[in-house]
């Protein structure tokens, strides 16, 4: 890992010194042993604050939608393969111009989830060596994705009856406190004013009761259908430990099955819900 850190610093330093970017968003040492913290490096001499290790869980592309990065003309961003998928989505949706961002990709053997667990995204990872970048740090790694990692938990829920599934979600969503950390952490939740914050009319009730929680969590997942790149930022941020990724992965599965589409792969392809085919599945419509 330390050679990746060195290489990241080297590239960031060069970009900053050359004036190729105004700043580099990366990870720095955290305030706790098992954490790193997002950092904005504006000067070449500060590049040594950048680090890379198994605690670099944050998807830094989420800073592209926030001040001050949003207002910058050229910005460097340190990103793992999974994070870059979000960037692909943002470019695809014209949220971020490709030429604005210089991608400092880093090969990644996997990060550490809560309690030292291996995140599903790492088990399913097909981008240990990123494919879309400007510079690459770290030796190339071969991806060995577990083909069932993403669907194993979904299938357990599929096996239940509708009523049992609703009971499952009712229990999980009762924990929701409507802090919207999921939305705030998500790089692809890009609305300047979220549907949950609109009150004329108020489609989504804001109080954390079952009715509002169901509506919010459902619409959050729906708005990410065909867009979510499964970076797990939402689930990691959730203070109530709701398994949000189950919803996101269920959506991704549907989109793959119905439209043969995977999010975050190709910035040139139109997103699945912004296009259609004349011969799309019609079997469920009377």
């Amino acid at each position, binding site marked *: 890992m330390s050679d990746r850190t060195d290489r990241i610093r080297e590239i960031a330093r060069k970009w900053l010194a050359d004036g190729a970017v105004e700043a580099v968003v990366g990870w720095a040492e955290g305030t706790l042993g098992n954490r790193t*913290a997002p950092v904005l490096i504006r000067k070449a001499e500060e590049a040594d604050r950048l680090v890379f290790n198994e605690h670099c869980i944050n998807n830094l592309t989420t800073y592209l939608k*926030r001040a001050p990065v949003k207002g910058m003309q050229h910005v460097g961003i340190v990103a793992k393969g999974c994070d870059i998928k979000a960037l692909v989505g943002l470019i695809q949706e014209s949220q971020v111009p490709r030429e604005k961002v210089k991608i400092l990709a880093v090969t990644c053997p996997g990060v550490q989830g809560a*309690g030292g667990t291996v995140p599903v995204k790492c088990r399913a990872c097909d981008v240990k060596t990123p494919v879309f970048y400007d510079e690459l740090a770290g030796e190339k790694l071969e991806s060995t994705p577990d083909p069932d990692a993403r669907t194993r938990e979904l299938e357990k829920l599929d096996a239940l009856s509708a009523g049992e599934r609703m009971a499952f979600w009712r229990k999980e969503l009762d924990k929701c406190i409507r802090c919207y950390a999921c939305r*705030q*952490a998500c790089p692809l939740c890009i609305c300047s004013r979220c549907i949950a914050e609109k009150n004329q009319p108020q489609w989504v009730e804001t109080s954390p*009761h079952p009715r509002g929680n169901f509506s919010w969590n459902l619409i959050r997942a729906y708005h990410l259908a065909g867009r979510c790149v499964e970076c797990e930022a939402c689930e990691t941020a959730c203070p109530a*430990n709701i398994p949000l990724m189950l919803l996101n992965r269920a959506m991704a599965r549907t989109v793959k099955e119905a439209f043969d589409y995977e999010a975050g792969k190709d910035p040139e392809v139109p997103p699945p819900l912004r296009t259609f085919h004349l011969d799309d599945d019609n079997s469920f419509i009377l």
Partner: protein
Amino acid sequence: MPCMTLEATALSKVARDLAGQGRRLVLPVREGPELFYREGADPEALDLSTLPKNSIKEFLFPKCERVLTYRQRGNDVDVEDVTPAVGPTVIFCARPCDAASLPVVEPLWNWDYKDKFFNLRRENTLIVAYACRQAPEEACFCVSVGLSPSSEQGADVLLCPLDEHRVAVKFLTDAGRQVQAVFEAYKTGEADDAALDAFSQEGAASLAHRKKLDKVKGWLDTHFEDPLWEEKTFPCIGCGTCTFLCPTCHCFDIQDESVFDGGSRLKSWDGCQFSLFTLHTSGHNPRGVQSQRYRQRILHKYSIYPSKFGKILCTGCGRCVAHCPVNLSLYDVVATAQERAEKGE
């Protein structure tokens, strides 16, 4: 004064017995990689391995509470008062930083206007606190705000796990002494003052590296505008996890939610980290950017609240440090303020 001890294994039984006397039981249990205080959990599932992720706040100030119901009838409206159905409750093995949050927020709920919802719950809640032999989490900093891992603040009964097996029990209030018999049934011995002192010292020693934050208020009062705010808060994504997990954060929203002509007015958690929190109808927002909102949180805890109520609005539980998704540490920010104050900056 010596106090009784019991076996650590008896704690679940005590919890069960306290519940058996007709109390709603809240205790920490494991859910996935973390602990949570949960209502109605099996006493046998009691897990004391670390600090739960949620605070005990939700059992006194629920995340969503109905304050009245209404029903529109033509151009008239019936408005009904709501009194929460609160029965006796025991929060069993609340950590001292959680127990200590209650005396901190009590004056807020009672200055001039008394909030009956909080007060009804408070009166009905027995706090059996479980002291920390050693700080359970890397993020802990209770000693920095004048508390300690064996603080008695806000507790009716304090359990002190002297070692792996023996737990000393201190009865601190009348409410605590009223349930003494429940504990006595499992008494196996006594602990003397020396043992309890040693226990307290061990806890305090585990946090010896934490700073005293006695100069923070002075610094904050003179550094409303300071580059520190923007420097430190770059990572903040405004998720509000810090405020919602905090045992002392108490801000709320009031919303009406109806089905047809009837509905409820609900009081729900809100937080200073959200841009809508202070947004005026005109579109003007006094705290329009995240660094201002983060500053407000620090100011409220370490300057505003102490000015108003004489207490720091923080018990050093460290949840906002440990669970911040972007590792923005409140302790780091206030410790920096302390350092600068010490250096006269």
